């Protein structure tokens, strides 16, 4: 996030696109609802009628995957009407002319045809966003989990830049991060192209720096990204995978391909807190401590680094993840892994990570966390980014052409499937909480009353959902939250593993899967006991809990 969570409360306008905030980020969602209650304007762009959409001044239920066209259309209107911030564009950006040229052809008429949105709504959205200074953009994976994900993000930046919305309070471009520490894992260099602090692995200066700090020469070759690793495994070139706390078999797209990759490798080690679907395919499974059994830090979306503290001992012989890695490293004869506690790891990390250099455990304790960049011990941290100047001087705008999603509905697969989260669960871990699972014990695929009527379905009937890649069964919830011709499922349930349906069409730059658009067909199936044993078991548990 360029800005901080609590700045939502003072915003004049919230532009929420591809984010079901009240379910996926409930506390940020609360703050948005509080702001709206106090008069903040709200635009929600989402094919579904989410809770926020029902409160919005303007809800734009666009056709899935048409985001780039929509944003270009909004910029077209803003430039046509002269609502852009010329001074900001001239002093703080470069590349504006190319964007201006490209969006010329995205007239309201053209965009309305692509997005299925009325021209008046496009005009209203452009006007609302451009005419409010404290106007923040908020997005999540509804923007990025497309074959055009990277372009979508760049295009949101274009929109924010031409209207001068970056570098001021209660505005900016704010990706709400999906995991507790996805920000931190990126900051720590758990990426194939960068060291901690986004120092490029191909940059001679960083190679020299890390070789010296770690006392071994490091590779100057770019690493592989997850889908490339999996492809290399299927091709026979990847022999080993060491997995810490991830479950790609359940959560990566096109699960059958992922399984094949794991089965093709010579040696797989999985470090986990539960026997995950991925762990089942491992040669060695190592028991890890969970967050309540660990000392350390997480970095939140607003770049705030906060402490994690040990409350209980781990079960059995489970150990903290970094301790397990240290044990393997030392057994392999490596030096430089003699950390006595998590604070020593943090100290080494901050000596090599400029954004974290001014943070210590003491400061995090006394100052209730710190927001990076925090380069020195006296620096107070950074509430919002890009005030006055961008790190690279001027922000570069790159024009983004609309390209449709990789898959479209057709006669054979007439329903568009969107995937995401629901309020009561978080990925897969919460299924292990009997309490949380009792609130949402099974998948309830959202379908529109039109489809329900056609298939003679009533609430909680069972359907088979089939895509070009796989076929699963699920119960249904009948609701007009989804448009006719589309449906929504979550990825929380291994009994209804939705990623057997999603496609491994990827964004060309990040290789993010297009989880948000799959063409499927649905049919009614009858309940058979043996097929749903697991679900029935959970039902029984639910009954016990509630009676």
């Amino acid at each position, binding site marked *: 996030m360029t800005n901080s969570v609590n700045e939502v409360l003072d915003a004049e306008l919230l532009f929420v696109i591809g984010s079901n905030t009240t379910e996926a980020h409930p506390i940020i969602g609360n703050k948005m609802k509080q702001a709206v209650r106090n008069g903040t304007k709200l635009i929600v762009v989402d094919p579904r009628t989410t809770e926020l959409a029902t409160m919005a001044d303007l809800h734009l239920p666009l056709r899935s995957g048409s985001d780039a066209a929509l944003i270009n259309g909004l910029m077209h209107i803003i430039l046509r009407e002269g609502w852009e911030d010329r001074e900001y564009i001239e002093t703080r950006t470069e590349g504006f002319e190319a964007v201006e040229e490209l969006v010329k052809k995205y007239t309201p008429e053209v965009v309305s045809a692509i997005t299925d949105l009325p021209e008046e709504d496009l005009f209203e959205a452009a006007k609302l966003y451009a005419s409010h200074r404290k106007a923040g953009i908020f997005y999540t994976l509804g923007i990025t989990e497309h074959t055009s994900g990277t372009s979508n993000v760049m295009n949101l930046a274009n929109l924010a830049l031409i209207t001068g919305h970056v570098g001021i309070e209660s505005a900016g471009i704010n990706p709400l991060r999906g995991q507790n520490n996805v920000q931190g*894992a990126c900051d720590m260099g*758990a990426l194939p192209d960068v060291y901690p602090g986004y120092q490029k692995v191909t940059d001679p200066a960083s190679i020299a720096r890390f070789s010296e700090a770690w006392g071994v020469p490091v*590779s100057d070759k770019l690493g592989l990204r997850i889908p490339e690793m999996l492809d290399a495994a299927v091709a026979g070139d990847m022999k*080993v995978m060491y997995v810490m706390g991830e479950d790609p078999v359940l959560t990566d797209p096109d699960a059958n391909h992922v399984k094949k990759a794991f089965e093709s490798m010579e040696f797989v080690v999985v470090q986990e807190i539960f026997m995950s679907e991925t762990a089942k395919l491992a040669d060695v499974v190592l028991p890890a401590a969970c967050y309540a059994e660990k000392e350390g830090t997480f970095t939140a979306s607003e770049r705030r680094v906060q402490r994690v503290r040990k409350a209980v001992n781990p079960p059995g012989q489970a150990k903290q993840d970094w301790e397990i890695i240290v044990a393997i490293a030392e057994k392999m004869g*490596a030096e430089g892994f003699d950390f006595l506690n998590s604070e020593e790891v943090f100290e080494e990390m901050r000596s090599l990570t400029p954004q974290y250099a001014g943070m210590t455990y003491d400061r995090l304790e006394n100052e209730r966390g710190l927001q990076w960049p925090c380069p020195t011990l006296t620096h107070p941290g950074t509430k919002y980014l890009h005030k006055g100047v961008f790190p690279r001087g001027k922000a570069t705008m790159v024009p983004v052409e609309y390209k449709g999603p990789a898959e479209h509905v057709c006669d054979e697969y007439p329903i568009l499937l969107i995937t995401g989260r629901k309020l009561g669960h978080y990925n897969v871990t919460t299924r292990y909480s009997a309490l949380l699972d009792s609130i949402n014990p099974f998948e309830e695929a959202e379908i529109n009353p039109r489809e329900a009527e056609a298939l003679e379905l009533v609430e909680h009937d069972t359907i088979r959902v089939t895509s070009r890649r796989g076929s699963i069964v699920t119960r249904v919830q009948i609701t007009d939250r989804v448009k006719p011709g589309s449906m929504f499922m979550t990825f929380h349930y291994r009994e209804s593993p939705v990623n057997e349906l999603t496609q491994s069409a990827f964004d060309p730059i990040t290789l993010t899967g297009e989880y948000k658009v799959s063409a499927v067909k649905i049919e009614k199936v009858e309940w058979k006991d043996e097929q749903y044993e697991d679900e029935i078991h959970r039902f029984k548990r639910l009954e016990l809990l509630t009676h």
Partner: protein
Amino acid sequence: MIRITIDGIPLELEKPINLLEAAKLVGINIPNLCYSPELTPYGGCRLCLVEIEGRRMPVASCSRLAEDGMVVRTNTPQIREIRRELLNLLISNHPMDCLTCEKVGTCDLQRLCYEYGVTTPSYPYDPPDIPLDDQNPIMVRDQSKCIKCGKCVRVCREIQVSNVLEHVGRGFSSTVTTAGDRPISRDFCRMCGQCVAICPTGALTNKEFAGYRPWELKKVRTTCPFCGTGCTFDLNVDVKNNRVVGVTACEDAPINGTQLCVKGRFHTDFISSEERLTTPLIKKDGEFVPASWNEAINLIATRFGEIKAKHGANAFSGLSSARCTNEDNYTFQKFMRAVIGTNNVDHCART
């Protein structure tokens, strides 16, 4: 500048704030049961009555803004007598099962009765005939213990913006309940539990804390392990049994304050799940067999060494984790880069 005097202490205010907050500034805590600085003042419990010089009747300090020249008295014999009578009225319409009430120790009504020496109700008790609402996994609603302070109504409306609860009826027959007087259910409630957390009596209690006395639990401040918002809260630990019992919010949490969602507040039973992995496992003939750490680490180090010698470092890949700590992630990527010698390290950032 507004100049006022509270219990003889002079105070200067930049802008008009309510007298209850103004008193806090000079270290005076005016008792109350329905006030929270986060919520719209309600003036329902009347316990925060104070005397203002020159006015005939006492006023509710939560709902009266400071005005220049005000001379305020918060603790006169007359005020104390009014508070005693108000508490007497409240406990006269309240079950006296404090010995076994789940709220004991954290009940504001109990605390104030103790402070004001109100021991026995003087009016006859006519218990209301409202069944317990405990058909949900998170809370027990016992309307007989509700003092109609309306904090739950306001916290649901103003903080969680869910509007699940409302005052219904007048006088003795008034209740706080849901639309259609239905039991709490996920159909219309987000189950965040903030109403339970703010309830000053035993009317709303957290099922997870049933059977634990608050003074038996140790609080450990930490950061939520789910979405990327970065909420901080206190884990409540039964140290003797090495068990996290539940979660309480902490006002000074920088991002979330007193707010939590259903996952943040009610997830902790997964920590002590029977399904947790407790020992290293090595697959032999397709079956996992428990192993010692030594065996497991030896096997991994040996196999890593062999495969690296045969196929090179780039035949290795590592998946780090957006769920693990910064320290875990730093150590993981250092291991892949410095010990294995490859940049093939990634995690689910893009998904």
